[in-house]
């Protein structure tokens, strides 16, 4: 059982890989069009205060996404261990 984090909890400056998307078909398609799809590496650029949206970068595209929508995306950390890497329990706040 791998441990995934929701994208909405990943701190700014981190790199992660999208492992699962729980949105409905419509939203999944929209996410895909903006570059958020399974297996893509994304960087969390910044999080706005007061539980505002977060800014993530996928490839050459910067995207803003509300925290609640980002909550539908599950990610694992980018590097060490490749596909099997997991977040430590404590990292998902």
């Amino acid at each position, binding site marked *: 059982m791998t441990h995934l984090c929701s994208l909405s909890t990943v701190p700014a400056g981190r790199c992660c890989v999208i492992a699962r998307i729980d949105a409905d078909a419509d939203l999944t398609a929209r996410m895909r069009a903006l570059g958020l799809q399974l297996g893509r590496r994304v960087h969390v*650029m910044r999080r*706005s205060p007061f539980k505002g*949206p977060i800014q993530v970068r996928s490839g050459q595209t910067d995207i803003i996404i509300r925290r609640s929508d980002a909550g539908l995306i599950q990610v694992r950390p980018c590097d060490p261990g490749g596909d099997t890497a997991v977040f430590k329990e404590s990292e998902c706040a």
Partner: protein
Amino acid sequence: MSKRIALVGMPNTGKSTLFNRLTGAGARVGNWPGLTVELLSAKLLLGDSMVELVDLPGLHNLHGFSEDERVARHFIETQPVNGLLVLLNATQLERQLALVLQLKALGLPMLLALNMADEAASRGIRIQIETLSEQLGLPICLVSAKHGQGVPELRQALTTWLRDNPNPVTAQARVLREDDDIEHNVDSLLARTVHVPPVLSASRTDRLDRILLHPWLGLPLFLLIMLLVFQIVYGLGTPLQDGLGWLLDELKTGWIAPAISGLPAWAISFLLEGLYDGIGTVMTFLPIIVVFFMAMAVVEDSGYLARAAFLMDALMSRMGLDGRAFVLQLMGFGCNVPAMMGARVIRSRAQRILTMMTIPFSLCSARLQVFLFFTTAVFSPLAAPWVLFSLYVISFAITFLTAWIWRGRARHNIDPLLMELPPYRLPTLSVLARQSLRESGHFLRQAGGFIILGVALVWFLTHFPLDAAPASPATLAGRLAGWMAPIFSPLGIDQLLSIALLFGFVAKEVVIGALAVIYGAGGDELSGILNQRLDWVQAYSFMLFTLVYTPCLSTLATLRRETGGSRYMWASLVWSLGVAWMISFVFYQTARALQ
């Protein structure tokens, strides 16, 4: 046979820029995904045939859709075309190529243009055009719609392509291909044809964002930027306005008055105090309008609007709105109508309607004219800009209040917020020139059209019967104002002013023209009269009422069209009238009680 090409692509890829470049048309351009929300077409000469080019709203995919995407999709699926000119952002092929593969399933001839060649080059992105073209089986051109490179070649390619596809065809019933299949194709295609260097250093956009999107500095900076833009418009525009006013005055006393001195008295009054003063006073705002819309164009093209959405979303979401609604509010500073149509990008109907209900409170450039006139007439030069700024703040406050009270269903029917944050860009001079040309043309057409009509009507109302003193209680206007007095006197708005408000219902641009006719004086003279007759409390109460009281006719018509019924139009009308009266009443009575 008429030929037609549709311009298709994801939002913000530069479709409207290319459309303008190819046809010389004046479509609105801006660094904000979803700026174009309806079809726009123009003619273009390719080889020896005249072709209709249609600029479509941006399209993310052929699946889900918001109202603007529906417009684009409906066009592509039902209208016969000679082909699709598909425009992609060359720097973002990794996510945009999938759209090409989806579109291919429609069976229409396609030509691919990769835009933003300049940005791709500066990011070190290299694309093997020939290989990509071979693999996709489509002709491809690399262009920069903004700066023009590659556009002659694109024209050439379009001409050849059109010769090969002389007959318009309609899209085939779509065989939806498996998306995963498409993704797989895209990935392997990209690996072979596109080289993206690893990012080494933070780009200019990144460095700017570090400041402008700073968690704590972001919002204060936003206010500061607004104030700055506003000071520039004020500082640049008002001297120009004074100059124009002076010129018009000279013209009146030096040329026109002597030239028509032989006419009967009523005709002189109609021509000079009616038409000339009325229209002239409105016309003095032309320089401000030009400067104002140039500033708007810079803001819209900079990419800062998307940042404003990012910064404000947290606050807006508490009122059932989102960051996009805030941006539309800012766009409404120019004119409420396109801002209201811009709400098409919001997919949840409840939230879209709520957004549209708040837009009429955005302080548009027509209201700005009234406020500029009143603040400079009644307040000291030092206080005037701040008074004006306070009206912007109040306009936001009323927006928030409206959303808060009406949020109802929108709160449970939340549209996901997911959008591109484009890089910062600078507008070219030609974009600025085109934008201000379009807006001043709009302004002049209005001045030449219904403002003349309104001013003439006001003259008639204030001068008929002809033997009564102009604008006295015996005239038609006087009687009308008498009936309305019980409504307006608790607000400190005197009878003559209320007549002007009546005309402002059609369009706020008429208000100043109407006042000029009512007081029989234009420009500076009118300022002087207002200064004598109104103290600051009355003036401010009048401005508050003007800010809120009713959307202009075109805004109401837009609201009706966009919601598909009159219900919300009436709701908006009644609500804004009620709020306007309450606010002016509370303000006026409190201020008087404190004095």
